[in-house]
């Protein structure tokens, strides 16, 4: 009987290798990929014009195609919020709840595995690879808290860990698994060469925006402004776009940095009032929060500062409310020294 494994596929090299190693042992493998809303790929590519020139691909789909496996992408946006708001094991360097995230994903993969008659789960984890979520003492936590127990096999470092059920039952040959550990990427690169894998995505710190310092600052700011931990899909997408400037606790501006972002922000004009320079070429800005007439003038001066008219005595802007009613404002652009650096998120 051919055994079936479901692999957590992130799109990076490690999960790709893990799948290869298990495929080589005659196991049928399919991939599963979770969309949390914070995933790095896609969004920014679609928004920023200069990113559009780069070859665009969804790494998880690409990896699956290289490996010849099916890939199931699961939308976990809603359920994932709880992981981000209340991680039992806390956050990493930024707002990344990596250990809780891993546990959650393995738990979801377990549900999928059971629903589809698969036998076990594999991941590309390596002991000691990441400071918190992939330590020798935290790997068992993932197994315990997710409920997967010894049906979770990590082919790249299995030899450093107690034998799992698939190994004990002889579904896979432990001798042909690996003993990678630590932060070095050399063993992975060597194994990639062995499998003639030449093209793969380079892991840059983490697999999601929550490991990004700037992003986490903006998310923490959003929570402060909203009076608690909460977000909607639109919120977390907007945090990836534009300059975020908060001149007062109760409102912030999201100012486009280039054309692509401007076009993207236009789609939100029904949700947020907006400002757009008209006398000079310039950005589109959304206003998140209630503003007084005086604050609106300040907002307009800030936006004018980022337009071609930044040195002009006066810039004309169009203010548009969420219903589409417009009016014109004329303001002197804010001089650089009046732009408080603390406003910049």
């Amino acid at each position: 009987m051919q055994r079936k494994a479901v692999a957590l596929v992130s799109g990076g090299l490690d999960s790709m290798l893990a799948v290869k190693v298990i495929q080589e042992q005659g196991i049928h493998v399919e991939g599963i990929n979770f969309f949390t809303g914070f995933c790095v790929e896609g969004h920014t590519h679609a928004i920023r014009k200069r990113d559009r020139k780069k070859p665009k691909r969804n790494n998880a789909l690409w990896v699956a195609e290289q490996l010849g496996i099916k890939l199931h992408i699961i939308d976990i946006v809603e359920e994932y919020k709880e992981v981000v708001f209340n991680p039992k094991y806390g956050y990493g360097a930024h707002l990344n709840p990596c250990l809780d995230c891993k546990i959650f994903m393995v738990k979801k993969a377990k549900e999928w595995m059971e629903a589809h008659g698969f036998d076990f789960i594999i991941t590309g984890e390596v002991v000691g690879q990441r400071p918190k979520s992939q330590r020798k003492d935290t790997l068992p936590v993932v197994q315990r808290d997710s409920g997967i127990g010894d049906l979770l096999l990590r082919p790249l470092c299995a030899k450093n860990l107690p034998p799992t059920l698939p190994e004990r039952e002889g579904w896979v040959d432990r001798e042909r698994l690996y003993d990678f550990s630590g932060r070095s990427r050399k063993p992975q690169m060597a194994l990639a060469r062995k499998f003639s894998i030449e093209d793969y995505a380079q892991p840059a710190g983490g697999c999601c925006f929550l490991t990004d310092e700037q992003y986490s600052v903006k998310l923490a700011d959003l929570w402060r402004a909203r009076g608690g931990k909460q977000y909607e899909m639109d919120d977390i997408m907007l945090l990836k776009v534009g300059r975020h400037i908060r001149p007062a606790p109760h409102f912030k501006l999201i100012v486009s940095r280039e054309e692509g972002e401007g076009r993207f922000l236009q789609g939100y004009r029904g949700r947020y009032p907006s400002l757009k320079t008209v006398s000079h070429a310039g950005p589109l800005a959304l206003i998140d929060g209630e503003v007084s007439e005086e604050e609106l003038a300040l907002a307009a001066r800030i936006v004018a500062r980022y337009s071609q008219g930044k040195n002009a005595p006066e810039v004309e802007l169009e203010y548009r409310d969420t219903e589409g009613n417009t009016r014109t404002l004329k303001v002197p652009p804010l001089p650089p020294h009046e732009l408080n650096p603390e406003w910049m998120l």
Partner: protein
Amino acid sequence: MAEGSAVTREILDCRRLLCPMPVIRVQDKVAELHPGDELEAISTDPGALNDIPAWCRINGHQVLEAKERDGEYIVRIRVGSEP
């Protein structure tokens, strides 16, 4: 084709969704359809033009057409026979 039923042609609105959401929508819709059925996904994220066909290749569905039309990205597919 499922139980001799006629081929369905459906349109899926994925406008304003960013990748990989259009792929997820297509995937979930295809799960409800039968082999031979056709689905046209309309997206505004250009990434859909790569990602939906990639997803189809992996999962054994046929891409009939993938093109840009008036600033929107259209991918037309035929559901494959694999489970």
